Every structure is written in C-alpha cells, then in structure tokens.
C-alpha cells in the first residue's frame, strides 16, 4: 500500500513509553539459569542484547520478545521483559498480532535458520513484506542444534550431517537476499562475537519503523564447530569481512586494502590501490540493487561476508495503516450496536400483533 495518509514519519520506538531513568544490563537479566552449551555463540548475543536494550531508553515492561523453537528461541527466558516462547516457525505471526494491537510495545522476534527459513519461511516473508513494526533477530548457525545436528536451509551444499551422511544436496538460502526479495525495509547482518558491530546494527534495527531483519552469524560449537572461523581468524578475516556504512566507500582489510567495485550488475573485490577512488562503491542503504549485489557478494563458502546495515528505507507499515483505518472508523462515531443488530428491516411482535416495516 502506498497511500499517503499524511502520517508523520515515525521511528520504531516513537510510540513506546520512555523509561523513567537510566537502566542497566542487570535490569534486563531474568532469574532463569541460562542453559545453552558451553561456548555457544548465543551467550555472546545475549550479553550484547542485555547491554544494548538499556540504550533504547524505553520502559522494560513495554519490551516483548517472541521466539519460535530452537536453541536460540530460549532467549526470552533469559531477559526480564515480557516474552513468549511459542511454536516452531510461528513467532513472526504471533508478533504481528501483538504489534498490530499494541503500538506501545517494542516487539522483538528471536528465531533461527531452521525456525525462520524452513518451517516458518512463509511467516517470515509475509512479515517482511507487510513491514510490521518488529525487530527480527535471526540466529544463523547453519545447523539444527536442538534436534542434534541435521543440516539446515542455510547449510552449505555437500555438508555431512546426521541426516546427510553422503553430504547435503540441498542448495542454501541466503537470509539477507531472501529478506530483500521479500521487500524488507531493513536488513542487517552481524557476528555473534562482534559486540560493537552487533549492538550498532541491533540498535538501528530497533529504532527502525517497520520489519527489521538482522541476521546474526552464530557459532554452534557442538554440531557445527568453527563454521564461521574464517571470518574470525584475523588472517582470514582480513580479505573476507566487509563492513558497510551508509554514505561511506566500501573498503576493508588493514588500512582499507580491499575495495568493492561494480562489475556489470554485480559487485567484485579489487585491491584498493588498483582502483580509481571514484570507482569504489559508496554504500547507499536506500539502493535496492546495491543491497542485493552486496548480498550476492556473500557466498556460501564465506569467501566474502558483508556486515552492517545493508538496506534501510522508509515505507508505511502494516500495523500503522491498519490502526489508522480502525481509528478513523471509530472516530466517525457511528458505533451504535443496537442499530447494527436491528438491521434495516426489523419487525416487532407485541401481544400477537406483527408490525412490519412494510406496514409502517
């Protein structure tokens, strides 16, 4: 829907009541014992989320985490906010109902690669296309952890797992490309261990009005150990990790050794020294084509991986428009239940006498 309702451009948190005073990570920590495996990447994300939430300066009780099923979906239990650990794949649908009916809440969805992209794929793409005001944290460990090690819809081709002893023949999704294809207005990516980068993307996502998808590369040391190590070891990361910032040229590596340049409709990487400065791609988060090309630059072999806010644009949200329609109708003041129930042609019976509309 592109109808301009003349509504002010709102931020993602503008209708959420502000906190009375400063908050700390401790305030957001629940009394529940965290039960992920030792070394799980989820711990780092939890720590980052606990410390970034206070920076939003909104009331804790107006913060809701809705999750699906999977290791990461235990997340809500560990935060002292409102939360619902729901059923497999359906968190975006539940969050949609909540966000539409409660504009005063900041709604987060916590999901994984199996939860969001396999069983819940339909809900994810529809939430993104509708642009419901919610922030989706997609923990991608490229494996099924909770069910003990089957390949997932982001596992690379050839992956040997419990259910693919001869190697997976399934082609993976790229969650960022999928989200862009679904019309997402905010798509970002971060690494579990990169507290600073992760917090920055999460904060931008939470402040975005509309559906924001943040893919978080997350290590599962038990079933997919070291799957993102090439992006963590400084030597490898040097030529692979690309972090984009809106309005800045896309260069990476020590002292910006590498630059992203255009090749036809795609992007490529070249040594910065060999590229004319004007040929270095400047990141524009509103450029849909560029966002998709950046997504394609991230291969399943992680030859390169793009982090940061890949896309952010303003588009009216489903929940705002839906509420506006209801509010407008309510304000028209014509909510006479008696008139509704009686309809246009009622008749009466009194002491055996029938009086009909026709008789009147």
């Amino acid at each position, binding site marked *: 829907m592109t109808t301009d309702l003349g509504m002010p451009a709102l931020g993602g948190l503008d209708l959420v*009541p502000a906190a009375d005073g400063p908050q700390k990570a401790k305030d957001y920590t629940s009394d529940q014992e965290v039960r992920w495996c030792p070394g799980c990447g989820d711990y780092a994300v939890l720590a980052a989320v606990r410390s970034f939430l206070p920076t939003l300066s909104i009331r804790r009780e107006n913060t809701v985490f809705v999750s699906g099923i999977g290791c990461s979906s235990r997340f809500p239990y560990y935060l002292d906010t409102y939360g619902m*650990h729901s059923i497999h794949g359906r968190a975006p*649908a539940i969050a*949609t*109902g909540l*966000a539409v*009916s409660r504009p005063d809440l900041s709604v987060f969805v916590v999901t994984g690669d199996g939860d969001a992209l396999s069983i819940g794929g339909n*809900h994810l793409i529809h939430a993104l296309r509708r642009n419901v005001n919610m922030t989706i944290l997609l923990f991608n460990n490229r494996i099924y952890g909770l069910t003990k090690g089957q390949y997932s819809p982001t596992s690379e081709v050839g992956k040997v797992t419990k259910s693919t002893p001869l190697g997976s023949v399934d082609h993976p999704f790229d969650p960022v490309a999928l989200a862009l294809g679904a019309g997402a207005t905010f798509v970002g990516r971060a690494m579990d261990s990169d507290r600073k980068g992760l917090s920055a993307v999460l904060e931008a996502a939470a402040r975005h009005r509309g559906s924001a998808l943040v893919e978080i590369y997350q290590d599962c040391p038990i079933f997919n150990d070291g799957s993102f190590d090439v992006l963590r070891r400084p030597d490898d990361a040097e030529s692979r990790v690309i972090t984009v910032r809106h309005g800045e040229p896309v260069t990476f590596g020590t002292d910006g050794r590498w630059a992203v340049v255009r090749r036809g409709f795609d992007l490529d990487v070249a040594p910065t020294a060999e590229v004319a400065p004007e040929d270095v791609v400047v990141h524009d988060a509103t450029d849909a084509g560029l966002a998709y090309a950046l997504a394609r630059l991230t291969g399943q072999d992680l030859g390169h991986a793009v982090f940061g806010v890949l896309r952010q644009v303003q588009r009216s949200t489903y929940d705002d428009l839906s*509420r506006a329609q209801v509010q407008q109708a309510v304000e028209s003041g014509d909510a006479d239940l008696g008139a509704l129930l009686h309809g246009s042609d009622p008749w009466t*019976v009194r002491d055996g006498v029938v009086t009909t509309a026709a008789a009147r």
Partner: protein
Amino acid sequence: MATTVNPGTAPQRRDRVVIRFAGDSGDGMQLTGDRFTAEAAAFGNDLATLPNFPAEIRAPHGTLAGVSSFQLHFADHDILTPGDRPDVLVAMNPAALKANVGDLPAGGVLIVDTDEFTPRNLAKVGYATSPLDDASLEPFTVHEVAMTSLTTAALEPLGIGKKDAERSKNMFALGLLAWMYGRPTEGTERWLRDRFARRPEIAEANVLAFRTGHAYGETTEAFAVTFEVAPAVLPDGTYRQVSGNTALAYGLVAAARRAGLPLFLGSYPITPASDILHELSRLKRFGVTTFQAEDEIAGIGAALGAAYGGALGVTTTSGPGLSLKSEAVGLAVMTELPLLVVDVQRGGPSTGLPTKTEQADLLQAVFGRNGEAPVPVVAPSSPADAFDVAVDAARIALTYRTPVLLLSDGAIANGSEPWRVPEEDDLPDLTVEFAAAPNGPDGRFLPYARDPETLARPWAVPGTPGLEHRIGGLEKADETGDISYEPANHERMVRLRQAKVDGIAVPDLEVDDPTGDAPVLVLGWGSTAGPIGAAVRRLRTAGHRVARAHLRHLVPLPGNTEAVLRSYRTVVVPEMNLGQLAFLLQGRFAVPVESETKVAGLPFGAAELAARLTPYVTKEQVTA
C-alpha cells in the same frame, strides 16, 4: 405498480410454503432466494432457508454440476427447518429441472423458463426429448414461462446489452413469485437501487425485470390464484432476518463490547467461513481489527499474539484450517490465554465438500491436538443461536483463560431465520480485569497462580510494570510458570488444565418431555436442532411419547447429562457424521446410545428423520 387485472379471486390462505429457486450458478439464484427471504422477513413470516450451491465459482454452463439452488420455507407459525420438499419449484434451465424435480411432490407447482429448454441445453443433461413435451411432468401444475425473452423484450427500451438484459431474468422470476404470494415490492426495488447504485442502468433493468415478472403474474390467467401466508405471531420482541455467519460476527462484536476489549480477528479465507471475515472487516467502527493472514496458522498465531496483548482474539476457519491450527491451539492451552477458534464445518475429509454441510469435526475439536489438551467446545443450534453462542464462547474464554472451539456448520452459516434481537443491556457483563500487581510472596509475580474458583491464571498484559514474565509451550512449573521437566509437576499441571476445563460453569441440559414419561430421548447438537425438533413434532402429533434435548456445550458436558441419559430407556443421537457424539457419550458414560447418521452434505429432512426415529418410538410403545 399497475392496477390488478385479475381481482376476481381472493388469495388462498396457506399456513406454510416451501419455494425452491434452482438455476445455473450464473443465474443469481442465491441472490433471488435471499431477496425473497428478506421480503418474507419484512412481512413478518417465520422462515428458514437452505442455500445449496457448487464449490466451483462458475461451473460449466447448463450442466448438472453447475446447478445452484436456494430453498426457503416461510410460514404463519414457528417453523424449524428449511422444509423437506418444495411446494413450488422454479427451474431456470433443464439442468435445474433434472436436478430438483425428484424432490417435487405430486401436485407441486413447477415454473420453468422455456427459453432455456433448447435442444443443446437438453442434450447437456441427457434429456433426449424435452420433458415439457412428454408426460413426465404430468403430476405437477406446470407453468411454462418464457422468462428470458419476456425479460429481454421488456428491457429493450433501456438499450442495455443483451447479456445484461438476460441476466435480469432472475428478477423476473422473483417478481412473479412476489405476485403469487402477495409480497411487498418496495423493499426489493429499494434494495436493487442500493445494490447497483454505481450502475444505475443495471439497477433500472433489474427493477423493470422485477416489475415485468410481477405484472406477468397479474395479467396471466394461469396465475389468477394467489396465496397468502400470514405473518407469524412469535413471542413478543423485535425481530430481523439473520444468517448464521452474520449472527456469529455480531456476537463477537457484542462480546468484545461487553468485555470492554478490542476485537482482533486473524483469519485466512476459507469456505464457508469467509463471510465472518467479510462482515467483521466492515465493522471497524466498533474497534474491530481484521487481519487477513498468509495462512491458517498465521491467522491463529496473530489472534493469539493479540490475545497476549489484551485483545479478544478470534480466528475463523473450516475443517481443513482447523487441522492446520491444531498446534497453535495447543500453545493457547499451554499459555492459558483466552482465544476463540471458530470452525464452520463442511463436508470432509481433506478438501471434501466445501459448500456442503457436515458435523464431522466434533472429535477433532474435542481431541485433535497432541498431548492432553482440553479445550471447551460449544455449538450453535441455528443461525440466530450463533449470536448467543459466540457471546457464551467469549464468556468461557475470558473467564477461564482458555481457547474455546465454536463449531458452526455450513447449514447454519448460510441459512437464515428470524432473530429476536437482544437489547445490549440484556447481554452478560463480560468485564475482565488484567493483573495489575504482583500476586506472590516478596512482591513476586506468579503467572500460573490460579483463581481458586475458576482455576484461571492471571492475564498480565505487556506494558504492566512489575509483572514481566515469560510464557510458552514448554511445560510450566506450577505457579511460577518457569520451565519445568519435573515428573510430579507435569502430572499436576496436566490434571490442573483438565480440571479447569471440567469445572467450567455450563447450564444443565434441558429436556423437553411434555408427557413426562417418554421412553425415548432424541439428543442432538448443532444444526440438527431444527430437523430433530420438526421430526419430534411429527412423532408427537402421531401420538408417540418422545422427549428431546439439545447440547450447546459439548466440552464440558452439562453436569446432568449422565443422569438425563440414564433416565430414558432409549437415547437416539442423530448427527451429520458417522456417530461422533454417540461415540463420545458412550465412551464417557458407558450408556447405550443409538446413532442415526447422515453424511450427504445436506441436513436431515423432517420427514426423513421422523421416519428414522419411528422404529424406536414404536418399539418402545409396544414394550412400554
């Protein structure tokens, strides 16, 4: 209107009449039937209707598969069913004749559009010669009317296209019937002008076709006799005609209003439930939000999300959709949030018979979830009753913090009848209180601490300071709601959830047993109420002692159910499935129950059911 040309004969009185309009799906028979129904209602008759149409939107023209019909029973007294066999059959083409003439009793009135009886149309349905030319229609009073050409001739001065002119022939038929039964005409003309407000030339064409049909009756010798069905003197009150889907939608709106909550509908289009979505989407002024979801699961998911946020959450569907929603219903059981799940049953299994009626989702509603997942189940008995049952379902959901399954069906959804409109103040007060403060020791909030009376847990909506808590599908520790895998805790929680549903307050089963000593009880649920009532009336008129009772609450059953069942020598349960309520009652109470079933996609007829019940009452009469 023109003055009456045939004033000679006074109208003949009839106490009740059944009319069936039948034609091609493109002939507008549903609309014609709806309009006649509205006129009968505006005249103050009691009435009941049965639309019967194919699932295809436009089945091949002129074929048996494409026949659509609408049956209307109207009377000067209270009636219970749409009628078994029509007194008047309007057949707009050979296919409609062939599909319906078998139901017309000898002496019945048959009105056919002769223009459609072309060799090609006759051949399509396997008539070698026209039945209008042989003896097959002799038992009937046949009126051969060239409706199509009379309509197009009358509409010629309007200069509209041939297609549009021909399409108005259903209004000709309606006008003719309006004449025959002395129906007021202003309402239909007003309605046509409203409906086609954006295309005034079409509105005028339809009005003219309607008047032409009416005038044809007035001036044609064959229609000199007209009939009169006086208004029905029902109990005092204000009435309107209402369909089941509309009544249900209104019940939801009224319930939300009485609860002081916004109404949120999450739904995916499905026959025959979609009209509830359509109706509610037009009622935004009552604070109603409708969300057309990407699928059935998202529909209930969003409704549950809204309920978590403090709305009256509702999802509407039919059988296949209920299958898809099962897991989410289980989540609502576990999270103990109020939620209404409406299943407008249709013929199954699988896609089944989308536009036909059946009651075969009962056991799915009662048991169709993994684990021990008790859910209250309620069912309306007629279109108007859907209003009260929707309000009652909301009462149960809000009071006990539980999902509630409401089982309507195709006959209720699309059928209509007079409804005594309630006053808003007479509706139950459904006010709910959200939890506002911690309820545990040391200022802790215990989301699974229970009300000692209802066993309901607190409804603590996000945004309430100090009550932050987590819920979900994993087993909950008693009171704290923390995750718990403790054997004893699971045992306790399973039994608590069951005890909560078992303890829901429902009124006792009322038995209608005029002689007080009937040996046979006929027990029904859902839309079989009408046929059972009509069949029992016939049996009583024939001198049999027979009692009847009807279940609105299937889970939990009324407290006196077992006692009632045991107090009759024979209990017969007629249902439109293979005996699901009978199975439930026998399993629950170990009492013998006789099952009378029908799964034809159509309701029981009154005579049909009376015949099925007769052996039970005669046997008992002999042994008594």
